[in-house]
């Protein structure tokens, strides 16, 4: 039985280091190639030696697909392609291809320049790696080789995030990457058609959460910012450079526009500026509002948001500043925080999760006195707010996607084991499909029942459908024809054509059957009785009485002769070709029951 094998090298019952191997119909595909943020040793990258101990990866993998530009989905790519060695195609969407190298370069800088690691990939390697990338469009079917094809669907989450359908013959797998089922201020919701894949590999970050409406959060956020600014206070929003930052920018920008506010908004320079440039370019990947209005004005051409300069932090009066990094652990955001923390008019808004040990986590958990380096004590008087803006599908969203795609099997990755357990149980209960959640390195095998396509000549199809009633979608239909298996292809043709092609002469196969009937009358009278009887029963068929004393029902011949020994017994000879087997056997069984007495 054909099977699909899935082995997560990362993201199996875990978040981070997404890397999933899929073997489908003899093709091997690697989905995502990410790094793990929690580790600084070998564990940060997937263990590629699993694929092959010695020998080139290119020989074992048909292609690599990257779903979006977050580092836990693409961070190991240069290492994989340049240091381990892979020369095959890498597929990603256009925005991902554009933004991915920026992030990789940034990651490299931090690891090599700041932390001083050696044996890490270089800038040149990133460039070389990107040369192997093939960019795809949404809904474009890309033929990787003759059998393997992939197709991207919109996934929301971040700019350029995509879900991929991998298809070989009739078997298919859909990998969602990270996706978002509720639209936000700059991206739309994930969408997939009813593609009915054999397997759906879905992320499950929020497997046990059903989220509140996004509007309340947005409104709260805007109200907080607005109030502080009106009071003359300063607002600090620590963000990571890409993704949420753009959403919050759009949110504030439109709010400023709507409310005619004048206070300046700043954005820390560097990475973000470059990224904003790409957001401006890839308008087709954004949501309805931005897509529709960009002719008048591109929403990413911010009117109110300006680049930040270090000196601005000391300016009097209200302002809003977006600064990196998001957890207040270093860099510009921490510097600004230290300047502003003493004033109770000011406010800091944490838009995301903070790892334990960071300043962000400390202030969120209510600590008001922070010990900074050099035994300085920083008293935090400013207001501290938390707003969660995350772009993963919640439990309902995941269920909705499964409902849209109608897969045969579901496999969960990118989530915690305990949470997956709950969702798995729900999926099995509500959709009655198998659900799997393999751990890293664990292989899941799924048996598929692929349909095998057979070519049929139009003439035969028309002829066969013309017989009998209208075709019914729900019921299988019986067809007569000859199946020719030749050169790895299947064709269904009419018997005559098959004979012609194979150069064979036609042999007729006839079944004959004798039925004895007790009837004392003359032969032709018996024939007449049989004729009337059949005519009465087989209304839909043409029953004919031929002048030579035989009866035909369609192409079945019935002849009656008197029994040589017993004149009271008539022998009915029924003869039919094998094509009429169904009717012929029915007719014999009918005749065997004898003729009705009443006609006598």
């Amino acid at each position: 039985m054909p099977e699909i094998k899935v082995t997560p090298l990362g993201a199996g019952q875990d978040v981070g280091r997404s890397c999933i191997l899929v073997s489908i119909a003899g093709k091997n595909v690697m989905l995502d190639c990410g790094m793990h943020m929690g580790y600084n040793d070998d564990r940060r990258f997937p263990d590629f030696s699993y694929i092959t101990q010695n020998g080139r990866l290119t020989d074992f993998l048909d292609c690599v697909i990257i779903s979006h530009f977050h580092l836990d989905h693409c961070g190991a790519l240069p290492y994989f392609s340049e240091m381990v060695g892979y020369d095959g195609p890498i597929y990603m969407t256009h925005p991902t291809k554009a933004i991915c190298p920026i992030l990789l370069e940034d990651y490299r800088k931090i690891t090599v320049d700041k932390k001083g690691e050696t044996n890490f990939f270089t800038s040149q390697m990133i460039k070389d790696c990107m040369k192997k990338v093939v960019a795809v469009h949404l809904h474009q079917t890309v033929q990787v080789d003759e059998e393997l094809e992939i197709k991207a669907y919109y996934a929301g989450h971040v700019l350029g995030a995509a879900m991929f359908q991998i298809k070989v013959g009739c078997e298919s797998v859909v990998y969602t990457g990270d996706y978002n089922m509720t639209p936000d201020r700059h991206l739309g919701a994930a969408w997939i058609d009813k593609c009915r894949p054999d397997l759906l590999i879905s992320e499950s970050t929020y497997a046990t959460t059903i989220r509140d409406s996004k509007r309340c959060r947005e409104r709260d956020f805007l109200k907080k910012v607005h109030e502080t600014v009106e009071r003359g206070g300063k607002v600090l929003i620590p963000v990571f450079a890409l993704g949420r930052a753009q959403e919050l920018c759009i949110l504030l920008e439109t709010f400023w526009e709507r409310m005619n506010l004048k206070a300046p908004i700043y954005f820390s320079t560097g990475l973000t500026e470059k990224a904003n440039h790409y957001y401006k370019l890839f308008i087709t990947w954004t949501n309805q509002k931005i897509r529709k209005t960009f002719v008048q004005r591109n929403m990413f051409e911010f009117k109110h948001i300006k680049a930040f300069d270090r000196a601005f932090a000391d300016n009097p009066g209200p302002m809003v500043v977006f600064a990196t990094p998001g957890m207040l652990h270093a860099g510009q955001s921490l510097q600004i925080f230290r300047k502003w923390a003493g004033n109770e008019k000011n406010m800091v808004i944490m838009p995301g999760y903070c790892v334990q040990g960071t300043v962000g986590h400390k202030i969120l958990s209510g600590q008001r006195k922070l010990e900074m380096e050099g035994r300085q004590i920083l008293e935090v008087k400013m207001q501290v707010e938390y707003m969660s803006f995350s772009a993963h599908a919640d439990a309902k969203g995941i269920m909705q996607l499964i409902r849209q795609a109608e897969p045969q099997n579901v496999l969960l990755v990118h989530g915690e084991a305990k949470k997956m357990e709950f969702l798995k149980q729900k999926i099995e209960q509500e959709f009655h499909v198998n659900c799997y959640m393999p751990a890293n390195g664990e292989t899941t095998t799924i048996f598929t029942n692929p349909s095998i396509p057979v070519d049929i000549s139009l003439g035969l199809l028309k002829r066969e459908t013309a017989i009998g009633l209208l075709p019914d979608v729900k019921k299988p239909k019986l067809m007569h024809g000859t199946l020719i298996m030749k050169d790895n292809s299947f064709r269904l043709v009419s018997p005559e054509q098959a004979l012609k092609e194979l150069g064979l002469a036609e042999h007729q196969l006839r079944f004959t059957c004798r039925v004895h009937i007790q009837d004392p009358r003359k032969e032709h009278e018996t024939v007449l009785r049989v004729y009337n009887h059949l005519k009465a029963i087989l209304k839909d068929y043409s029953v004919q009485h031929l002048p030579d004393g035989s009866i035909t029902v369609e192409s079945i011949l019935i002849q009656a002769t008197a029994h040589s020994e017993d004149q009271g017994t008539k022998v009915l000879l029924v003869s039919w070709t094998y094509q009429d087997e169904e009717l012929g056997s029915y007719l014999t069984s009918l005749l065997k029951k004898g003729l009705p007495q009443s006609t006598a």
Partner: protein
Amino acid sequence: LQQQHEDLSTKKLRLTKPSKSAALHVDLCKATSPADALQYLLQFARKPVEVESVEGVVRILLEHYYKENDASVRLKIASLLGLLSKTAGFSPDCIMDDAINTLQNEKSHQVLAQLLDTLLVIGTKLTENPSVRMRLVEVACKHLTDSSHGVRNKCLQLIGCLGPVEKGVAKEVESQSAKDVQKIIGDHFNDQDPRVRTAAIKAMLQLHERGLKLQQTIYCQACKLLADDYEQVRSAAVQLIWVLSQLYPESIVPIPSSNEEIRLVDDAFGKICHMVSDGSWVVRVQAAKLLGSMQQVSSHFLEQTLDKKLMSDLRRKRTAHERAKELYSSGEFSSGRKWGDDAPKEEVDTGAVNLIESGACGAFVHGLEDEMYEVRIAAVEALCMLAQSSPSFAEKCLDFLVDMFNDEIEEVRLQSIHTMRKISNNITLREDQLDTVLAVLEDSSRDIREALHELLCCTNVSTKEGIHLALVELLKNLTKYPTDRESIWKCLKFLGSRHPTLVLPLVPELLSTHPFFDTPEPDMDDPAYIAVLVLIFNAAKSCPTMPALFSDHTFRHYAYLRDSLSHLVPPLRLPGRKLVSSPVSPSITPNEDPSQQFLHQSLERVYNLQHLDPQGIQELLEFTIRDLQRLGELQSELAGMADFTATYLQCQLLLIKALQEKLWNVAAPLYLKQNALASAAAKQILEETYKMEFMYSGVESRQVVIIHHMRLQAKALQLIVTARTTRGAEPLFGMCEKFLQEVDSFQRCFISELPHMQGSFVDKLLDLMPRLVTSKPSEVVKILQTTLRQSTFLHLPLPEQLHRATATIIEPTGESDNPLRFTSGLVVALDVDATLEHVQDPQGTVKVQVLYPDGQAQLIHPKPADFRNPGPGRHRLITQVYLSHTAWTEPCQIEVRLLLAYNSNRSKASAKIPKSTWGDSMEALPQSENGIEGTIPFSKPVKVYIMPKPARR
């Protein structure tokens, strides 16, 4: 087909040419190849065909059809047959048999489909004839087994449009094919082709629309179609389910996989709710829209739509709405959000959580969060409709509506504000909700702000803090957008009169009075101060203890405002002060209203004077007109009435003055130049009568007849003046005839009203009619002059409600000193923003006029989309006017004003005449009566400073 109608006028010219049919025949015979024939047919199709020759053309086409081997030509012929049978006045029953016959031997599926389409056209023209319908339906049933989807599609359409609707009749007529059309169509719900499935559902819906009661058995079939792969099928299925839920709301259906049963409407509601999260947005819009009209649904199902059980890490979480409500009820308001404030509390039973298929659960939550704004708008509309019928639901959906005020698309925001206004009777806003609502007041879009003011006008607020908050926010709004002044004042007026008891404790603070110290007198011209006073005075109207809290200057300010802003400040019974007019209490009906009485009395007085000396009459009229005009200014609700009568009296006065001229006695040649007054009067009366007829809404036929009568008198006057001033009878002859025709048409139009017009000008004139027709122009003029003098003054009855159309241009303000500079030859767009009141059909009638200093005038027709309708009887015109001119040396002012276009054809009088009479007399009527088109300026002109610069080279 439309083209045919347009060409109707040019058709007459071609009548001399040989008949259409002959030409076509020749063409088709000449055609050597199918392509040629197709070309001829295409050319032929562009021209209209007269009704008489349709049948001939059809015969030729059919003849050719049988001979033709090429399918594309046959297809074109088939489509032409359909087109021809649509010709107005042609009855296609004569060609039906032929059309059916052609079906027999047709092999091409496309042609078959087209022929069936033609039959559909024929059938729809002959709907009266049941046997024809029966026959066509039979034909359609026969072709239902065709293998082409197009043919099946058309067959189903045909059955849907023509299938028998009445059960009883159907059985009689149908002998052998007593088939049930519903069954036939239902069988195709499972067709292999999605297009056919859609057509089948559509046909079913068509049957429903035509009045057939659909069977309940289709319901479960339709439910299965909801899971179809194709969006158009799902979309149609949603509609079908909705129809069934309206037909059998109370039927009981089982819930699959359990033993329970629920009402059909609830089940359908749940299913449609489910479709709100469909993959296709078309279906989502459809589903969201239909939800609004399912009002029989049980309340607990309804309330589920707003419920989305939140959880985090498998623990139950409260929604932000619930938390806000709790904070509010615990007395603490607006606490800062803390990390973990929304931490989940109780554990959720994992077995009980239902992630999907929980019926209506959270449908609106999803709909309102949808990606496409079309869906969001549909969801808001549906919420509105459901909330209007269920107060408890209205209370619940409030939070969600308030959230929509922050949508990214302005249309959605606007729609949700309007929705909130519509359901405001059922709700009271909590303070935190009010806070969110008021935050939107800072929106830079004027539409949004005004909609919000409207909303606040009819909102119930629960606490005095709420009122205070609203006032503070409105004042903030006022400082930010001073142009909103009027709208804010109006809003505060209603806010005050709705919540007198809540305003009372705020009064000392608002007026900043102090029990011991005198506080400085606020500036009377400060709009913010006026706003506060408007709120207080309106509250004081039903709160007699309030004036005790006022300080001296407040009373003075009251008197001033009562006079200057009488529409905003109500009359108050103040201690120690006599009211100018007796207090108006709501119990007094308008008829007993003293100002109304005054109006009627003054009119009585005027109508009773028949035999006063001319001088006296004139004086009295003048006084009355003055009184009425002043009354109109004071009493806004009577303004329409007063102005209308004043205008009428003015006309009368002008007429009397013109007739009193001594000049009539002077010999003609002498006053050639001095007739200015009389002819000017005639002209002015004509203008005024048009104003009376078209500028007021609520004018009834009784008034129209009097207006027309006045116009007739003016025309008579014109005739007399012309007769006196021109020499020779030649021009007079035509004028006389025209006038007599007008009298004639007047008589025909208002025949029913004539008995009420005893002793009037026209009455007398009609008596003299036989004489007039035969006499010479000079005599006619003489008769007219005497009749005009002798005729009595007609009593103008007043309708119940009369409103004058008014327009105020808000923008441009005309105050700017900075000229609008642009390069000559190019255009500049000028934003025009105006409010229109009591204008009927503004899309058709309101025009913008731009007057350039060189006397050049430009008339602009605003697009229909530029008009918005914020409330009953009110419209808002927001448009852009494109200006252009050649270069000027100095900036100069242009004038912009609004005009009301009228067309006497459209007049209310003509609408009353049966169409046939009009048609008959169309030719006979003079051109003038047929359609005088003109415009009435009805807004004050606004000056705009512009400066076209010469183009730089």
